[in-house]
């Protein structure tokens, strides 16, 4: 079945350094829908960005990601980390033939230090 794999566990960075969180996926469908959701402490997940177009960069709130079907990847990047970026990040794949339910990766906790 479909699956999503993310950078394991905890990523700790110093403020101002670039961020890259890895996401790869597996699906039999040729046109996948990929999402990044962010969950801050004591909040619920909310959409950060999404993409369905191969090799097209999508951006939101300083973050960007590009869907690469050739490598089944959708890595999340930011040029300069901020303290407020500390959160849990989930990469997700939409199961388009099952009411668009989301198949989440295991989540990556991003911790930004001053």
């Amino acid at each position, binding site marked *: 079945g479909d699956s999503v794999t993310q950078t394991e566990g905890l990523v700790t960075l110093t403020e101002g350094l670039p961020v890259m969180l890895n996401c790869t996926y597996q699906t039999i469908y040729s046109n996948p*829908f990929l999402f990044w959701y962010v969950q801050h402490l004591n909040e*619920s997940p*909310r959409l950060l960005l999404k993409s369905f177009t191969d090799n097209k960069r999508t951006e939101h709130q300083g973050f960007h990601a590009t869907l690469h079907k050739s490598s089944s990847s959708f890595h999340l990047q930011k040029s300069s980390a901020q303290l407020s970026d500390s959160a849990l990040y989930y990469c997700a794949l*939409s199961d388009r033939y099952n*009411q*668009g*339910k989301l198949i989440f990766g295991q*989540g990556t906790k991003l911790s930004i230090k001053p």
Partner: protein
Amino acid sequence: ETAVFQTPNYHVTQVGNEVSFNCKQTLGHDTMYWYKQDSKKLLKIMFSYNNKQLIVNETVPRRFSPQSSDKAHLNLRIKSVEPEDSAVYLCASRHGGVNAEQFFGPGTRLTVL
């Protein structure tokens, strides 16, 4: 206010009891979901439902059942809770195509003693 609402925020119960959680969305969405977020923060789909079809994730134990009165409500009932059911249960909704954003409620944290 338009959003996804869940009650209760927290619930503590004993093994073997029955519990019910409520979810209501005022966004006018046509598809709703229940997700489980466990202690390791793994997020897994449990159910998805629109006014035509209920889809149950095959790994969900039979003691879990969704209940819907209309497209704005999707409740979750657990017939006889077990310790591994301790988790945060998140309700979400979506409108339009499967590439649309899902909006999550604040969650219900269940602790089974």
